């Protein structure tokens, strides 16, 4: 057994105490997000697994199988912290304060043997530097996961497909239409066409801030895909300035049914499906006949 492992094994409780002290002293400790007991438990677990890993004699390759548990515990901690809203500094300080604790104990033990102290410090520092890199990597991964999930959620809620009538779907598009969004719009719309057996889809672009040639291309793609499925697509909500840009850019929408408002698009859809909406003569309100 090497000295590093011995140090960790024999001074476990002392290291834990110093480390806990270091952590608790640090101003950035978020005692609102994590309790002392929880922190102590995590730290204890990490020191134990680190002692076990170093006892194999490997003190520099953290990608070896004996370090698997250490990495796992550390990744788990930093990913959880990323999700809980810890800052990078707070997360990084966790491992770095262990380094301080270990250094302090080494200094105490080998104060009369500077050469041994130097060698041991070097080993400990290299090992913990590697571990803190892992912490940062997984912290960022945790944050990225949060961002990705939110992007997916936004995409999901921003493209609702509404069944407005038997066989007629409406899809209000709000926000810019980029290629990733078009994919989701298309997938949702086409799947809903299959699910409901609808033959008409109204794409309402009132909520799209601007239509350039790229957005128009995405719209044309959506219409083409709908037609391939055997349904017809109407684009509604074309404002004056959008009509102007479309013509100025020379975009050809002549093959596509377009309407100024969702109401007129719905009227067209009704007439295509031979549905008639009229005011009832006696009663207020309206009745619908086929």
């Amino acid at each position: 057994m090497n000295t590093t492992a011995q140090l960790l094994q024999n001074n476990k409780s002392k290291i834990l105490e110093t480390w806990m002290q270091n952590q608790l002293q640090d101003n950035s400790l978020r005692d609102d997000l994590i309790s002392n007991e929880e922190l102590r438990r995590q730290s204890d677990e990490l020191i134990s697994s680190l002692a076990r890993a170093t006892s194999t004699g490997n003190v520099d390759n953290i990608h070896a199988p004996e370090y698997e548990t250490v990495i796992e515990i550390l990744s788990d901690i930093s990913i959880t912290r990323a999700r809980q809203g810890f800052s990078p500094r707070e997360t990084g300080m966790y491992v770095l304060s262990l380094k301080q604790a270990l250094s302090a104990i080494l200094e105490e033990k080998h104060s009369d043997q500077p050469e041994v102290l130097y060698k041991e410090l070097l080993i400990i520092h290299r090992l913990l530097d590697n571990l803190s890199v892992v912490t940062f990597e997984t912290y960022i991964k945790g944050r990225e996961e949060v961002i990705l999930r939110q992007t997916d959620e936004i995409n999901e809620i921003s493209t609702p497909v509404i069944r407005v009538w038997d066989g007629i779907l409406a899809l209000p598009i709000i926000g810019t239409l980029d290629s990733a969004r078009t994919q989701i719009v298309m997938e949702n719309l086409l799947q809903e066409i299959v699910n409901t057996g609808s033959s008409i889809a109204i794409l309402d672009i009132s909520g799209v801030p601007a239509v350039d040639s790229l957005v128009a291309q995405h719209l044309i793609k959506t219409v083409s895909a709908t037609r391939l499925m055997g349904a017809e697509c109407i684009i509604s909500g074309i404002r004056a300035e959008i009509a102007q840009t479309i013509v100025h850019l020379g975009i050809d929408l002549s093959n596509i049914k377009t309407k100024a408002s969702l109401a007129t698009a719905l009227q067209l859809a009704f007439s295509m499906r031979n549905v008639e909406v009229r005011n009832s003569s006696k009663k207020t309100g309206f009745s619908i006949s086929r």
Partner: protein
Amino acid sequence: MIVMTKDTMQIVREQDVVPFRNRVRELSTKIGMSLVNQTKLITAASELVRNMLKYGNGGKVMLETISKNAQSGIRLIFEDQGPGIPDVQQAMRDGFSTGKSLGLGLPGAKRLVNEFDIKSAVGEGTTVTIIHWKHGR
């Protein structure tokens, strides 16, 4: 980028196309690719494998599952020892065909996948590499 699995298939007859497509589907299902992205990848692969049979007298395809920045994907490398393409730029244009096809094969395949690379030398052969990521971006 890390290569996780590696596999090679010889494509010499038209009948080899169906098992090849099934293999691609199997791999992309394994990494959890969505149906639309699977369909795009297999359609692109189908176009390229047809080109290989038609113009390169067949060849081999390397199928790999890869991983980069925590995202997994599929990489397909189509290699033939055919006559090669004299003008790659022209071949990549929509509607260009030396055979009697629509001329959508190469440019269409490029549009369907995330990454596309073609290298060709006259008299030596053509190598096309495509990558499609799990989330299609």
